[in-house]
């Protein structure tokens, strides 16, 4: 559910008082996307319910967490670097051999936020398999519809494109529109955005060769993590790959995965090839 005007107003006042940062109207998507993890961790139904809870029962720690969540910087392109390097230099070449008969790849970016992750993956694929005539599709999902609107638009500020996007890729895959940068259509065409709560069924998504599920599991309890990982295994094609965040693991949660070191990261693969 979208953030209510009252909840947005309250968050703006709090952040302005505590950090002097002014959140203007139109930044509702930012507030919602940054607060989704806190809402999940608190077990709230959605961000508005979470904000209302903190508003009605003042809680210093929760207020600090909200301010911190909103004053950290923009999401980076190729966030953390190493997983994308492993994807481009090891996983895609391996899949090129494994999927040579179908010449088709499907990737799921399971908490795509404002789009930097799926577009980073799309750029990697455009510069490799897509240039060789393969079909590629990135399905990018997020809980927040506001965030998805921003992601779908594919338009970023200068501050946002400064964050971890190599300049040669910026000039090759983006066009300047006013003071912003627009992801080019050939990249946008590779990404399909849709709203999805990770705790609801994945059956409509289809099957994937690679799933990026980074920095999401940390916000769920053990049973929900286990349930998500079990269902991710079911949408992963045999021989597929799962990328988790640096602080996340399948160990002790769902032991039907093998960990495989690839470059500086570990990828997770279903035991016995999966399915």
């Amino acid at each position, binding site marked *: 559910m979208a953030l209510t005007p009252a909840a947005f107003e309250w968050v703006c006042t709090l952040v302005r008082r505590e950090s002097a940062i002014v959140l203007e109207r139109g930044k509702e998507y930012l507030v919602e996307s940054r607060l989704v993890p806190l809402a999940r961790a608190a077990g709230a139904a959605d961000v508005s319910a979470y904000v209302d809870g903190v508003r009605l029962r003042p809680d210093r720690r929760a207020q600090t967490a909200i301010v911190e969540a909103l004053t950290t910087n923009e999401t980076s392109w190729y966030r953390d670097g190493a997983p994308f390097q492993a994807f481009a230099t090891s996983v895609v070449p391996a899949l090129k051999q494994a999927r040579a008969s179908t010449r088709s790849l499907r990737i799921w970016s399971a908490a795509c936020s404002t789009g930097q992750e799926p577009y980073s993956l799309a750029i990697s694929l455009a510069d490799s398999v897509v240039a060789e005539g393969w079909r590629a599709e990135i399905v990018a999902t997020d809980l927040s519809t506001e965030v998805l609107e921003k992601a779908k638009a594919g338009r970023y500020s200068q501050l946002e494109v*400064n*964050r971890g996007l*190599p300049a040669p890729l910026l*000039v090759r895959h983006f066009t300047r529109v006013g003071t912003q940068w627009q992801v080019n259509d050939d990249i946008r065409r590779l990404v399909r955005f849709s709203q999805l709560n990770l705790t609801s069924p994945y059956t409509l998504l289809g099957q994937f060769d690679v799933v990026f599920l980074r920095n999401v599991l940390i916000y769920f309890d053990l049973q929900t993590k286990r349930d998500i990982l079990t269902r991710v295994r079911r949408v992963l094609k045999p021989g597929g790959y799962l990328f988790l965040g640096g602080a996340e693991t399948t160990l002790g949660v769902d032991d039907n995965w093998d960990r495989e070191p690839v470059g500086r990261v570990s990828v997770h693969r279903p035991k016995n090839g999966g399915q």
Partner: protein
Amino acid sequence: MKALVVDDSRAMRKIIAGALRKLGYETVEAADGAEALAVLQAGPLPDLATVDWNMPVMDGLTFVTQVRANREYRALTIMMVTTEAEHGQIVRALAAGAHEYLIKPFTVDALEEKLGLLGLLPEGAGA
């Protein structure tokens, strides 16, 4: 690691050099392209040069072009750090031999990430 910070604004040089020193760099500063060339001639060669575009005496693009014309400086990594943000300008700077391009204003995190892309983040620096 050593960085040459080239910018005609003293305030901007302080910001960039300060951020680089926090990451473990030794820094040397120059107020325009000609001064920067003199620093390179005096040696030793730094690992990185951050270069503004618009400067008196010699602008950043001319500096990059002159550096790339000299094989002795080929190990120098160049990152433009400038308010010039037109698509065509970034293309020109990269074509002239700059490796990266950071648009002002920028955050320290953004500078750090660009150094990471260039493999120039000193060990132990950053997250």
